[in-house]
């Protein structure tokens, strides 16, 4: 297990608390900001989820837009720079090969961009309160080594991480 440093962690203690809302809402807002005030290095956006019907994910995202035209223009503007990916739920807290493959595949198509990842995943991240030397820090987030390594370099940024406190989300 290694530490990861998502900029925002949304932890639910029960289903329906609003993790997807928080993560997807954050994705929408970040994309709007990037669209109107682009960063010097282009950003591509990847949303990962593991508990919805893939069609529902798209439907859910379109609801952030006022109308079809708005949504169509948006999709055109972000062509190739945006993906909503559904993966299987993790069998164990250490195994995330499907997610890793999805991120690396997307990153390979956009080698010059910084990839911002919105991980609406349950049973993937673990919240704990001590760091490796036993010092109590308010919160740390861990995940499997290989998955943590994906976020280690300058190209992939873990922006939002969702977690379920009861599904092994607590060490």
């Amino acid at each position, binding site marked *: 297990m290694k530490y990861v440093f998502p*900029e925002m962690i949304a*932890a639910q*203690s029960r289903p329906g608390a609003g993790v997807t809302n*928080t993560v997807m*809402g954050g994705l929408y807002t970040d994309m709007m900001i990037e669209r109107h005030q682009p960063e010097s290095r282009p950003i591509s956006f990847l949303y990962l989820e593991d508990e919805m019907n893939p069609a529902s994910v798209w439907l859910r995202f379109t609801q952030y837009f006022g109308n079809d035209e708005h949504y169509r223009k948006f999709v055109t503007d972000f062509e190739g720079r945006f993906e909503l990916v559904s993966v299987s739920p993790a069998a164990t807290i250490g195994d995330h090969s499907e997610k890793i493959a999805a991120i690396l595949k997307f990153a390979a198509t956009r080698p010059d961009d910084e990839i911002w990842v919105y991980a609406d995943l349950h049973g993937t991240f673990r*919240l*704990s309160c001590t760091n*490796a030397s036993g010092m109590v820090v308010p*919160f740390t987030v861990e995940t499997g080594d290989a998955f943590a390594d994906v976020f280690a370099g300058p190209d992939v940024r873990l922006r939002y991480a969702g977690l379920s406190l009861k599904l092994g989300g607590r060490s």
Partner: protein
Amino acid sequence: MLPKLITFSMAGAGASMSAFNLLVQAIKRFPNDAFYYVTDEQNPNALFHELVVKYGREHMEELGNRVNIMQAYRSKAIAEALDISLANYPDMHHHFFLDTPSLLKVVVEDNGPDVQLDEPDENAFFNLMLAKNPKVTVDVATLRMSPKGLAAFATEVKRTVK
């Protein structure tokens, strides 16, 4: 207490925006409930204005004091808000949104995290009221690191990030 949703963020990551967004939706989803949105650094008038823009002045007037947006500088204010809310509407379901990272702390124990108000007496009172009133839920709590925590975190980053 264990809120339904706990968000942890560094700074400026969007925690307040997310929490308020959930309030906006909850007001629509639960037309017969009461809401308390407590913030420690947002402008409550600006937030209320957003609700007026979204739902219209008339609807907000109809809702009356079932939707409350308040600023708090002490966790005592949160405990008092709960007290007042229950006194006003004893039979309603009350939703609390605690966008007050400076007034909350989290203690992670064996059976999971416990979000606490930073003043122990107020925390005890708050938990007691929650236990006695199952119709009160803390829907969202936003947490942020203290400066001390950030320093510890920075040390950790140096250790694990190559």
